[in-house]
């Protein structure tokens, strides 16, 4: 057992040495594969951030009831009373039109423009949270509220949240597909690199076979090579995306602030990093298996 570990250890360092002794070709190869892996990993980050946004929306589903512009305080009192009586309502908050205008002015930074308006164009509104926020229940609540006096419209953020969920689900499938395809690409690149390496070390392999090396022994350093290159590609992809996040999040944050929200692309979680590195290593290892099984068979 100790011999077996010692052999693997020796092969590992030998392979690492080979990689280090050819820095330019190693760097170019892992850069190509790293940038290839950036696409699925980057898409994952985007989806992960959208998923978190969706989670926030789902935790606080809100129904907004907009009153007619010309509604008066008795209309508001009436709706207030109806909401108070409704057993499905968990809690609600009245937002007067003046407060809404003030909030809009603060968030959008167009105070001067709003100040120039002849009258407040915003309606009074109620923001309602329901006890049971299933889509069916919300739809039922919405339909009944629309029949209340002086209610102009009812808006529920779940509509676009549902669209977002559908988009995320579609994106998830797309990422799986892209990941499989690009992992296959990485495998093919590594497999081909290894095939060329085997060709350049054919004499050494032939001698080893003649003096008693098994196919497994011959294959071992190439498998390490593939896995190490895959791992390095994963690290490169992670590094590139971290740099991109740092650069792009400043812009995204500024852009989302314009809409009064705080949205940034989130970085990799430790488990996502582990999956990225393990996945790229496995892709490299599989590429090495393909490369060696074909090339060694012909020696």
């Amino acid at each position: 057992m100790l011999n077996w570990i010692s052999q693997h250890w020796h092969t590992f360092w030998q392979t690492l040495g080979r990689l280090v002794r050819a820095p330019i070709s190693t760097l170019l190869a892992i850069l190509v594969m790293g940038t290839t892996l950036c696409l699925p990993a980057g898409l994952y980050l985007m989806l992960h951030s959208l998923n978190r946004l969706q989670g926030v929306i789902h935790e606080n589903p809100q129904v907004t009831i907009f009153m007619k512009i010309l509604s008066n305080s008795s209309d508001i009192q009436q709706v207030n009373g109806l909401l108070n009586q409704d057993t499905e309502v968990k809690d609600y908050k009245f937002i007067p039109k003046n407060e809404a205008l003030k909030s809009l002015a603060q968030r959008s930074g167009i105070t001067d423009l709003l100040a120039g308006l002849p009258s407040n164009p915003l309606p009074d509104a109620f923001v309602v949270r329901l006890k049971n926020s299933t889509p069916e229940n919300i739809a039922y609540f919405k339909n009944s509220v629309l029949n209340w006096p002086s209610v102009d419209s009812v808006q529920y953020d779940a509509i676009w949240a549902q669209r977002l969920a559908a988009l995320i689900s579609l994106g998830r499938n797309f990422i799986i597909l892209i990941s499989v395809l690009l992992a296959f690409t990485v495998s093919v690149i590594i497999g081909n690199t290894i095939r060329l390496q085997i060709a350049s070390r054919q004499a050494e392999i032939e001698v080893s076979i003649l003096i008693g090396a098994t196919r497994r022994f011959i294959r071992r350093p190439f498998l390490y090579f593939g896995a190490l290159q895959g791992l390095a590609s994963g690290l490169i992809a992670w590094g590139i995306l971290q740099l991109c996040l740092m650069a792009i999040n400043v812009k995204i944050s500024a852009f989302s602030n314009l809409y009064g929200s705080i949205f940034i692309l989130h970085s990799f979680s430790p488990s996502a990093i582990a999956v990225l590195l393990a996945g790229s290593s496995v892709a490299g290892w599989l590429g090495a298996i393909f490369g060696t099984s074909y090339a060694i068979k012909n020696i």
Partner: protein
Amino acid sequence: MISLKQVSKRYPGNLEALRDLNLDISTGEAVLLTGRSGAGKTTLLKLVSAIEMPSAGEIMVNGQSITRLRRSQIPYLRRSIGIVFQDQKLLFDSDVLTNVTLPLHICGQSRSVAMKRARAALDRVGLLERERSLPVALSGGERQRLCIARAIVNRPSLLLVDEPTANLDPDYAKAIIDLFRSFHQAGVTVVIATHDIEVINRFPLRQIHLDQGRLLNHTGPTTY
């Protein structure tokens, strides 16, 4: 140790390298495999080391039937045999020590044991001081001794040697032959394929004479 029964080897194009060969070599015996170039000496060594398979007949080595060995078992048979190839088959971009440790790494020896045994083998053939040299920096005789060190480093019970003195001057050739003589005296079965009259005269052993793939058994020096 080695037993061949009705062994024939045909190559594509109906080229018959060996024909109905029957042969026995006992454990601890040293024999010379003689004959002109193309007589089938190298083919016979390749069959015994399972580098090639016979077209007909059966070969037993160390009690194992080579013809019945599974492909995956062949490497393990080869590990018990030390082979000195006619074309040397050295790793020219690796140093002397790496060349000699290779069979030990293949057998799963730890690095420290491999180093120790490789240095002992190099010392045995007088190449210890050249352990960091590349094979290209060695003379013909030194390269041959390097091949011998690689062949003996695993302490094989059988040593197959193909034309060990080809292209060597007489002094180097004598030194090489003396090495094989010492291995034989240590109990190793040695089979030397040669057409070098000097070797045959200097190594008065049982001779297995091959002619056009057929066996002619006799002892004593021969002239061609």
